């Protein structure tokens, strides 16, 4: 960690901040200092601890150890309200306002202008709201429900709300992810104004251009630790990305760190072909093809459209346009069942929300998708189920008290294996794996990697999404790199290196 002087003296500091959740150390005694009048970039991949740090600073979570200092004094905010009153405002990544309430009410909730008798002065509130929001380029009727505005406009309302509060510190968590270019400009101008007024901004984003354009200093988090902090201008783009992804450039040459075997050479015709997948604000004409026996990696930072591409191929994300075909036969869009029938199976990114059925046993979870094939006349053939479950529990070395144990009680790695088993039981042609090894322990990770390798050798077409560059490089035969929902590079053979991927992500191959 490189210490650097805090410009303008620190406004908000975390010192030795420790936050532990059951099983995870989200913040491992980190220190962070925000200077007065500076725009401070906070970067890191998923699970690095960014959101936890923000929540600790704004009174959503309490620290387990360490302290927060605000304007030199030790503080313990009991609630977001207290932090706001003290002058720390936050704009969350998902617009955290109330969609059913009007724009004006959202803007002023908790500090509505009062008329005589202490009642809310709506006329005055609307007038002021219109006036304020005009300054942010929002010209909609402020009486409309917030939810009827575009996401960008909603984000601008959130911004106005945060800035309105006479905040000394404004924390912005990926504020541009849903903004139109015009709105982004307005946001940047607002940030510049805040800076001029001597207010401070914590800016979380994955977009390199923005970071370098806006931010004075940067703090890089990884696995709950600060891996770098210092002036941003002195840091090369590639170096920043390598810090975020945890790859030392010198180390890149070292091979064999993962359990993936050698490359799989396949010259067969592609079994999966996706053409021009597009969805407004999400995907922009993504095309890719995967041959049988091939592992194609999908690279890119968080929010680049990796998961959305996988979901679109699996029929779980409606598309504006684009086509998916398996073995040259088009798959009807927007239907998971149709995709599964065509042999496309998706291991979703969010194991808890989209994968496991927590109330059911390991056994039921494994055969969930395959049930109709293991039934006769609607009655489950328990013998067949047992055979399938036994086969996969053994092959995947799923560690459970038995097939009857509730899946929610398993470790993350074993839950992931259960989900893999669910799809393997379907004899798929195409397997889409979205972060298959995230959040699981080293042993399970190696096992899952070996398994993916074996599956490819058996002739499966695999699309692998991973934030872990090492995994991506060693696992993939080819890598398609995404940025802002579009394909920005495709690497194959000897080109598949961490440097090349990072360069593509950073946009250094552009123009």
């Amino acid at each position, binding site marked *: 960690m490189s210490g650097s002087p805090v410009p303008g003296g620190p406004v908000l500091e975390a010192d030795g901040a420790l936050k532990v959740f059951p099983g995870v150390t989200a913040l491992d005694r980190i220190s962070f200092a925000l200077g007065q009048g500076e725009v401070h970039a906070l970067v890191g991949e998923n699970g690095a601890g960014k959101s936890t740090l923000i929540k600790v600073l704004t009174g959503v979570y309490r620290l387990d150890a360490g302290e927060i200092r605000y304007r030199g004094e030790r503080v313990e905010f009991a609630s977001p309200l207290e932090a706001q009153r003290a002058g720390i405002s936050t704009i969350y990544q998902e617009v955290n306002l109330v969609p059913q309430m009007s724009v004006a009410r959202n803007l002023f909730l908790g500090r509505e202008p009062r008329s005589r008798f202490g009642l809310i002065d709506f006329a005055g509130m609307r007038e002021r709201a219109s006036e304020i929001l005009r300054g942010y380029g929002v010209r909609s009727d402020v009486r409309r429900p917030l939810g009827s505005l575009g996401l960008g406009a909603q984000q601008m309302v959130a911004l106005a709300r945060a800035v309105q509060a006479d905040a000394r510190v404004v924390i912005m968590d990926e504020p541009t992810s849903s903004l139109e270019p015009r709105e982004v400009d307005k946001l940047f101008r607002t940030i510049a104004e805040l800076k001029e007024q001597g207010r401070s901004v914590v800016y979380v984003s994955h977009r390199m251009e923005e970071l370098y354009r806006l931010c004075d200093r940067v703090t890089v988090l990884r696995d709950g630790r600060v891996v770098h902090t210092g002036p941003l201008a002195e840091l090369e783009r590639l170096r920043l990305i390598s810090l975020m992804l945890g790859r030392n450039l010198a180390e890149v040459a070292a091979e064999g760190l993962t359990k993936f075997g050698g490359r799989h050479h396949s010259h067969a015709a592609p079994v999966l072909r996706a053409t021009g997948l597009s969805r407004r604000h999400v995907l922009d004409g993504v095309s890719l093809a995967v041959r049988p026996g091939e592992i194609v990696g999908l690279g890119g930072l968080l929010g680049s459209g990796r998961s959305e591409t996988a979901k679109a191929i699996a029929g779980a994300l409606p598309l504006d346009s684009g086509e998916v075909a398996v073995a040259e036969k088009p798959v009807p869009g927007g239907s*998971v069942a149709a995709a599964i029938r065509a042999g496309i199976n*998706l291991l979703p990114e969010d194991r808890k*929300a989209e994968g496991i*059925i927590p109330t059911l046993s390991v056994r039921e979870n494994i055969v969930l998708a395959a*049930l109709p094939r293991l039934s006769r006349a*609607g009655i*489950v053939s328990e013998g067949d189920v047992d055979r399938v479950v036994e086969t996969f529990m053994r092959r995947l070395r799923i560690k459970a008290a038995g097939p009857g144990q509730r899946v*929610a009680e398993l470790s993350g790695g074993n839950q992931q294996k259960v989900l893999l088993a669910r799809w393997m039981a379907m004899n798929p042609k195409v397997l889409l794996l979205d972060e298959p090894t995230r959040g699981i322990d080293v042993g399970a990770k190696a096992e899952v990697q070996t398994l993916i390798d074996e599956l490819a050798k058996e002739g499966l077409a695999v699309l692998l999404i991973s934030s872990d560059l090492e995994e991506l490089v060693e696992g993939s035969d080819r890598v398609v790199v995404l940025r802002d929902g579009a394909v920005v590079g495709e690497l194959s053979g000897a080109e598949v290196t961490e440097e090349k991927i990072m360069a593509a992500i950073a946009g250094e191959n552009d123009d």
Partner: protein
Amino acid sequence: MTDTVLRRGAAGRTRVIAWLQEYGVYAAVVTLFAFNAVFTPHFLAVDNFRTQLVQVAPIVIVALGMALVIGTEGVDLSVGSVMALASAVVALYLGYGALPAIAMAVLAGALIGGAGGALVAVVGVQPIVATLALLVGVRGLANVFLPQLREFTNPTLVALGSDSLAGVPIVVIVAVVLTAAVAFLVKRTTFGRQLVAVGGNREASRLSGLPVRRVLLTVYVLSGMLAAVAGVLATSRLQASDPTSLGLFMELSAITAVVVGGTPLTGGRVRVLGTVMGALLMQLLQATLIKHNLPQSWTQMAQAVIILAAVYAARERR
């Protein structure tokens, strides 16, 4: 990752709660039964058992359907009204014979259930409002079909309500058979597995290609049919069709039985035997208080406490 830590930290308390969640309702039934056996005169009499079981049978049947619906994270408020409708339909079609009349009644239940299911699964209305509309409307419909109480003497229907097979009332036999059928449905069929999966995690079920809409629709149809059967049985016992009062507040009794039986309102689990035990517990509680000359009002207050305790205990999980 989180779970290993939790398990290691699991103190006795967690284990006790887990045990209570799993077997609490059985323990309560056994305790109350034992209490009565010792302290209540004439409790261990065949007649008493018959009376209690005959009374609880319709509740059990309705609660079975309710358990399925709650297993999908829904609720069906229309069951009492469906009972009334079934009662009216039976009376109207009795001229064609008992069996066609019963078939029509069950069909009517299926239709109402289908309407509720369509509102929930296809239109996306919240289960509580969708079935509330049916609760209000269907009771009215039953009264329109049959404006006043009508007595009947159809021997088959009367026999259904009052005869016994080998000493066991037919009503009770039907309840037992349906319990077995629903248990089989939940445990052994594809549909049953998909039902709990949809209730446990709808998004994961969708991503696994399950027919989520069809499952939801079917669940409400089944609930409607079971309520109709309960309505027919209650009617046959009364030897009269009384759409005005038959099945009033049945939705509350059924929800109570399901919840007390350990099926969580958050879905993903259906406890068939637990539901039966829940209904039995409430019946036994009522009987105990009555036999000891404690007023009806105590029963309701005791029920309130039991419901809260059951749900509070279930809340502790995870």
